[in-house]
């Protein structure tokens, strides 16, 4: 176990180094931040001063080492537009993003896994084929379009839900969240449905594939042959083993959800870190872009790590 942990952590560090390298070299190509910080008719002296202040006059590899050293300290520089430390901004927006991701994840778990298991366990039924048909439609939907349709019909036309924003925040065990107020829930429902929609379709398809695979295994055939009723075969034998692929899918989809918050948050003007990223991209706000990317990279690496650990807990065959 110890050896595995050391090896895994070593791998994580390598991945993060590679990512930081790519992020740095690519973002140092983005536009020229100097112009966004200065008035249009700035003198050459002022330009030089800002270039020096940002360290843009140093050679690239020196800039990278400085970037890396600062990144390790959590310092990505100040946002060019918000004039605050970039990572602090990301952290301050993170809870809002986490809220919709958590709610969307719940919907995905409940609907995605149950429908997936059902259509995999009884693939011949008409209802299973119906679910599969809808899941293909689901993966064909652009999430921004789903968001717009929901906003128009449920918010603008029917007025059931607010069109945008996060609503009132309440306190829940000392955490400020919109999940603690009714108004907050009203605001969160549409963004989470939009976020979960496509995910549910993907999860249904993947879980179904895993289920079909499991139902073909010998021990299932054997259980059926010895006369275990089909309900027990499903719940006592098959479901335990489907957990393994589900956990993998789960880890992957969590990353996917976080990536898609950029779109959902833009449509619903949800003040999370996804919207912060899109705004930063449009304003050439380099510190925020690199802080966001590295923060998300750390998040993904940690999620993958947890998934690996969970594996060993669920599946005794996996040895580490």
């Amino acid at each position, binding site marked *: 176990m110890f050896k595995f942990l050391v090896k895994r952590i070593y791998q994580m560090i390598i*991945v993060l180094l*590679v*990512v930081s390298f790519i*992020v740095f070299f*690519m*973002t140092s*190509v*983005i536009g020229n931040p100097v112009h966004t910080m200065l008035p249009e008719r700035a003198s050459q002296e002022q330009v030089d001063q800002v270039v020096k202040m940002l360290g843009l006059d140093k050679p690239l590899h020196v800039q990278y080492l400085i970037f890396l050293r600062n990144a390790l300290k959590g310092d990505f520089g100040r946002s060019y537009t918000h004039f605050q430390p970039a990572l602090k901004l990301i952290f301050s927006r993170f809870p809002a993003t986490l809220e919709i991701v958590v709610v969307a994840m719940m919907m995905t778990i409940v609907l995605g896994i149950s429908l997936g298991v059902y259509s995999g366990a009884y693939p011949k039924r008409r209802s299973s084929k119906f679910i599969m048909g809808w899941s*293909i*439609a689901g*993966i*064909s*939907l*652009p*999430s*921004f*379009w789903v968001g*717009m*349709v929901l*906003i*128009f019909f449920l918010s*603008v036309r029917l007025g059931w839900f607010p*069109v945008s924003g996060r609503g009132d925040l309440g306190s829940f065990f000392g955490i400020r969240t919109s999940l603690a107020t009714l108004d907050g829930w009203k605001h969160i429902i549409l963004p989470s449905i939009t976020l979960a929609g496509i995910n549910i379709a993907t999860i249904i398809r*993947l879980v179904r*594939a895993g289920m079909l695979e499991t139902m073909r295994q010998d021990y299932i055939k054997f259980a059926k042959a010895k006369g275990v009723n089909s309900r027990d075969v499903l719940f006592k034998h098959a479901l335990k083993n489907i957990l393994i692929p589900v956990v993998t899918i789960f880890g992957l989809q969590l*990353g*996917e959800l*976080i*990536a*898609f918050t*950029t*779109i959902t948050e*833009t*449509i619903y003007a949800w003040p999370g870190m996804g919207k912060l*990223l*899109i705004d930063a*991209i*449009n304003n050439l706000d380099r510190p925020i*872009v690199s802080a966001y*990317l590295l923060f*998300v*990279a750390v998040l*993904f*690496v940690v999620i*993958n790590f947890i998934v690996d650990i969970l594996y060993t807990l669920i599946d005794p065959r996996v040895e580490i």
Partner: protein
Amino acid sequence: MPVKQSKIQQFLHSEFFHNYRKSPTAIISSLMILSAILIALFGPLITPQDPYALAGLELADAFKPPAWIEGGDANFLLGTDQQGRDIMSAIVYGSRVSLYIGFVGVFFAAITGIVVGLVAGYVGGRLESIIMRIADIQLSFPSMLIALFLMTTFGRSVSNVLIALTLIGWVRYARIVRGETLTVKNKEYIEASRVIGFSNIRIIFKQVLPNVLTSVIVLSTIQVGSFILIEATLSFLGLGVPITRPTLGMLCSDGFAVLYSGLWWVSFFPGLYIVFIVFGINLFGDFLRDELNPRLK
């Protein structure tokens, strides 16, 4: 030419074609794809206006709802936007760029991935493990996020979207092609060609490649759909195509600006057409996968 005809006849009598004719979803979905392609190719000949010739736009025609709603105009079947642009014409023109990006993007991604996968699988060793490690790392990040990141640094243009899609898409091809290459590599007929003295290049392209093509075709079908969606999303966020070459995603983005004032048709129909195209592609991709390669997920 008798040889060619016999090939067609062979196809007509194949199991694949038989199953195709028996499957309503396969027929409907292929018709959906075909009609989308035909509309993109010839649609501009029949649209009521060229939506990007500014001289042809009349401000008096602005904000017209679809023809079947009160206040609609039979000349503008799906309504007009704030500049008096016919939505249907805009969709036809937009779909040209969307489909172009989908197909050309997949073409480049496939070529890159196939070459990398063949080389990795056939050569093996250190090179293989490095390539596959890169692929693993890349696959652990959502492709949408990678696309966003690449487009921020590249800046918006059609060719940059294509480069971004190639960089996202090669991984899946490389993985599949490498896997298939590994299984084919040790078969006897490859061994035999090597004994005869065929060069590696020749073995790779003449004997290994044909064996991986089915998987590549199945993957490509699904990839076209997902590339169209990624492009649409990028353009919706203002990070995809430039304003001068609007795609369906960009039309949605334009329409989003006027959605709150009740002009739903400006963004609704372009999005619906994306769904139509991608749904057709995904349905057909599903059929192909079941027919040609049930192992592929």
